[in-house]
């Protein structure tokens, strides 16, 4: 599974992307976020604040939690500011 971080969340994790095997006990994207938060205090602070971390799975915005498979691409990012 490929995981991407954008904008200041990338600074928090110290990396733009990483390849992960789906961790033990993680079956959904929210569980994955919580699992990453346990390893990265900077990410954790953002993850636990309301409305700060947005999620895309396979390059589509998601708002509800969704199940993950081993080939999924998951991205975490702050609210977008294009245009």
């Amino acid at each position, binding site marked *: 599974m490929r995981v*991407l971080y*954008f*904008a*200041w969340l990338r600074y928090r994790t110290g990396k733009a992307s990483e390849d992960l095997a789906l961790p033990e006990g993680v079956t959904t994207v929210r569980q994955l976020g919580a699992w990453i938060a346990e390893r990265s205090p900077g990410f954790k602070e953002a993850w636990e604040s309301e409305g700060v971390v947005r999620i*895309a799975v396979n*390059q*589509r*915005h998601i708002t509800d939690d969704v199940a993950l498979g081993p080939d999924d691409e998951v*991205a975490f*990012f*702050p*609210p*977008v*500011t*294009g*245009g």
Partner: protein
Amino acid sequence: MIRVQREPFDAGSELRALTAKRTDIGAVVSFQGNVRAEQGDRAVRAMTLEHYPGMTEGELARLEAEAQARWPIQASLIVHRYGRLEPGEPIVLCIVASAHREPAFEACSFLMDWLKTRAPFWKLEETADGERWVEAKASDDEAAARWRG
């Protein structure tokens, strides 16, 4: 059509190309967004746009398809830049051509409102005090919400 690019664009050339030899177009509305030197009380030296390659193109294409489903559109174009841009430089261009002015205005306004809240771009401002990530505006969410079907 959609394009994501580092290079500048020329709105005039894009307008001409989109409407050349067309006699079915009665109205062309375009929006261009530029980098401003002042953002609130901060003097901005430059703006660096980061984006999510792949998703950006997908999201812009979905926005354009949604506009085409909602309004009778003859031709449309969205161009969005990324990379480092200085004040006065163009960031984004959106053109909608239609037979009539109302759908052209509405679709162009809709595209910009949705783009602001959906296209995966993030702006990093450079000021005299250092760098600062631009925060999303609640007013942009409200502007996008008025188009909910």
